[in-house]
């Protein structure tokens, strides 16, 4: 049962990713991305990581892609504005071949790190809100604050960049 759900969600994720890079219409690409993100959220739910599942939907699907779609619609990008990519599929195949060694490394790492024989989710409350919060704010407080500082810097940077230049 779980294997079937996993296969369905994984194929949805791959399908969405494929759509995102192959379609020429920007809105369609964004929709493909949403499909991928929702499928990934489903995979998290399958792993009992309920908090990650919800945050994935709230932050990525609910806010970031909505913002992206808003910008695309706001700029009203037409098909004719997009750059011409005559040898798009050739590039895709070539880059896939170039990436092969990295993929191999990833697989190798995956099979050495995890014990495939009893590959199961750890404790029952593994992805619980309370458990995750406790870990984050007790053991990993400093990295957490550092990341939030980084985000703040990025935010201020964006505001500074977007501000209209005053005429001298």
């Amino acid at each position, binding site marked *: 049962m779980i294997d079937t759900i996993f296969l369905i969600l994984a194929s949805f994720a791959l399908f969405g990713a494929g759509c995102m890079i192959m379609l020429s219409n920007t809105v369609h690409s964004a929709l493909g991305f949403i499909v991928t993100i929702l499928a990934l959220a489903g995979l998290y739910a399958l792993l009992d990581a309920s908090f990650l599942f919800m945050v994935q939907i709230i932050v990525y699907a*609910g806010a970031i892609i909505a913002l992206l779609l808003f910008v695309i619609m706001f700029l009203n990008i037409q098909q004719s504005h997009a750059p011409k990519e005559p040898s798009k599929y050739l590039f895709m195949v070539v880059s896939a071949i170039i990436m092969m060694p990295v993929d191999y490394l990833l697989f190798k790492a995956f099979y050495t790190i995890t014990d495939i024989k009893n590959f199961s989710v750890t404790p029952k409350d593994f992805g619980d809100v309370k458990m995750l919060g406790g870990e984050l704010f007790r053991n990993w407080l400093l990295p957490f604050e550092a990341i939030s500082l980084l985000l703040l810097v990025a935010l201020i940077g964006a505001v500074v960049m977007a501000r209209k230049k005053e005429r001298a």
Partner: protein
Amino acid sequence: MNAILVTVVIVNIILALLFSLGAVPILVWVERRVAGFIQDRLGPNRCNIAGFRLGGLVQSFADMFKLVFKEDFRAGDIKEKFIFRISPVIVFVSAFLSFMVMPFADNLVIGDQTFLMQGLPIDFGILWFLALAGLSVYGIMLGGWSSSNKYSLLGSVRAGAQVISYEASMTLALISLLITYGSVHLVDIVNFQSGLIFGFIPAWGIVMQPLAAIIFITTAFAEANRTPFDIAEGESEIVGGYHTEYSAMKFGLFFVGEYIAMSASSAFIVTLFFGGYNIPWVGTQMLKEHFDIVMIAILIILPILSYKFRGWILKNNVWPKADDKRNNESKWLIRVLIMMNIVIILLFGYFLLFGVASTATNIAVALIQIATFAVKLLLMNFVFVWVRWTLPRFRYDQLQELGWKVLLPLSIANIFITALVVVIGA
């Protein structure tokens, strides 16, 4: 899997259906009648089936049938057929799913099993609501975009900007609530509110967190696309906004989805700020312990209320001509009322005489709590309608200023104050 579990799950899903989809005709009726009342006119009250008008409620069903049987027209200019077709479905489904986590009653204990009284028995209801409120905007944005119509596109861009700006304040207002309640599980939150502060005020969210309540209710109006924040459809500026090109039941799905979203927002507000299924001053435990007194109280109050209601019907719905069909309605309504009274009096009398099993008490308490929740839900929905017909629509820049310059700083300040109080209090 046993029979009780399956029954409870099915009953829960039916309840969620009734409260969301089943409430739509009632809400449409409430909206039109209240609008009539506020504008000093009657509102729809003529539509009838064999004389039965139910105060105009039949009109909602007539309207729904009209939408179902209308021609489903799509302009030839619309190229994105699939997206055009699926957008109303996204709005409808996400509004509907967001209702599924509202607890209608406290955890039901039958034998040695405990059941969550929600459509979907999950314990992170707040996150679920936020996620689906965020997803519903896709339906509006994509519907407007795929319509190949300038007004539709304007409507969808407005909807997108509005949801993005108000979701920030909404989430931040919720964080201060989470600090107070210490849980994301809606049943925990409601049970927290069954307590008292200073010994006599119910510890409802609106008393504990008045600022968060105001911010959240405001943003909930914006998320549900209701006036004064309905710039996405603003009919005086951009025709019908995102649903200009939609007709028949595709438009109907948008319409029904909007009402379900309103109902879900109301349910969420009731759960977070108005004690959910709790009767003020009477917790679940107290109801169970003093069930005899509750039954006696109902036995006294119910006939009096029914008598008053009968008098009201006789005063308002009696017509001089003997063969007037409308007199039939009064006759049958009063009969149904009397039958209901007899059944309830017999049932409670039996319980009082021969005593009650604990399971029966638990189920009866759950029923009372479901009724309480329904009453609160209806009142909150009434507030939504009331505001819609009293306040004018915001202009786009005013809306953004309210969102970013007023609500966001206020909600951040509220988090600080709440955290300070919690830390100092502990």
